């Protein structure tokens, strides 16, 4: 019937709109979480992948901008609140909100400095997750095979 097809179309439309949630499912929604990677692993991936490596590197560099912005914002707004207000909770809240605003501003600066709007950030993260997945499953497979007495080359 036509109405069934219509609802299928509606569902597809919303599935496309909410497709970004797949990223969270693949990263956070695993039945068995991946073993935790270190910065050295990420650096290895950045060196190995010519396309997504530099993107991931730029994404990691933008963290510094966000943290620096957070510090500057917190210091500024907290300082203003400390100077003009006598309420301690007001100073704390102002510092927190200044950190938030500063972090957003810093990340925006980084977004334009590294031209992050041109790249697929979630895609770059996913590429690393896939690479890490393959690497880890290869090691696990070697471990499991060795249990049965097989030596993989």
């Amino acid at each position, binding site marked *: 019937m036509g109405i069934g097809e219509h609802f299928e179309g509606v569902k597809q439309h919303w599935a496309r709109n909410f497709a970004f949630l797949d990223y969270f499912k693949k990263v956070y929604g695993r039945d068995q979480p991946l073993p935790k990677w270190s910065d050295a692993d990420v650096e290895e991936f950045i060196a190995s992948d010519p396309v997504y490596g530099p993107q*991931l590197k730029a*994404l990691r560099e933008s*963290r510094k901008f*966000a943290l620096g912005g957070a510090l500057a914002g917190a210091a500024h707004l907290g300082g203003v609140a400390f100077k003009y207000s*006598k309420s301690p909770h007001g100073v704390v809240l102002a510092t927190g909100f200044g950190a*938030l605003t500063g972090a957003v501003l810093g990340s925006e600066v980084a977004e334009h400095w590294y031209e992050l709007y041109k790249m697929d*950030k979630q895609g*770059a993260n996913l590429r690393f997750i896939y690479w890490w997945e393959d690497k880890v499953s290869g090691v696990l497979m070697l471990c499991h095979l060795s249990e049965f007495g097989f030596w993989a080359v």
Partner: protein
Amino acid sequence: VLMILVLLCAGMDKYHSSTRFAPLRDAPFALRGAFGTSNSSFNNMDGLRHSSSIGQARSYTSSPLGALRQKMPPSGNRSLHTSRPLSTPVANRPLSPHLPLKKPQLSATFSISHRIFGAALGAAIISIPLATRFGVMFEV
């Protein structure tokens, strides 16, 4: 006439609004000097001002109307409220109980719970775009 006005206003309670200076009280702090220096309003400054603002007000004497010298108020240059750092309390004395005594009424309870709920809801709502924006950056 100016001296009488000075003494009158110095003797008045600082929350009293006199009709002469009422527009000055409503004006934002930055514009107080802009309303003319013809009256000795700088001597009748509120206790809420800091002593630094007296120096700021004095700079207006360089304006064309600056020939009129300001008269010192009887209290001198001290402002009525000095700003204290947060570390020293205003006075080391016990306060009279208010919260343990007042019976919690529906209006007051409703109001504060509304505020608390609103703050929590605001924090929850803003956490969604924040998590989305910064999660991508800080995850790998």
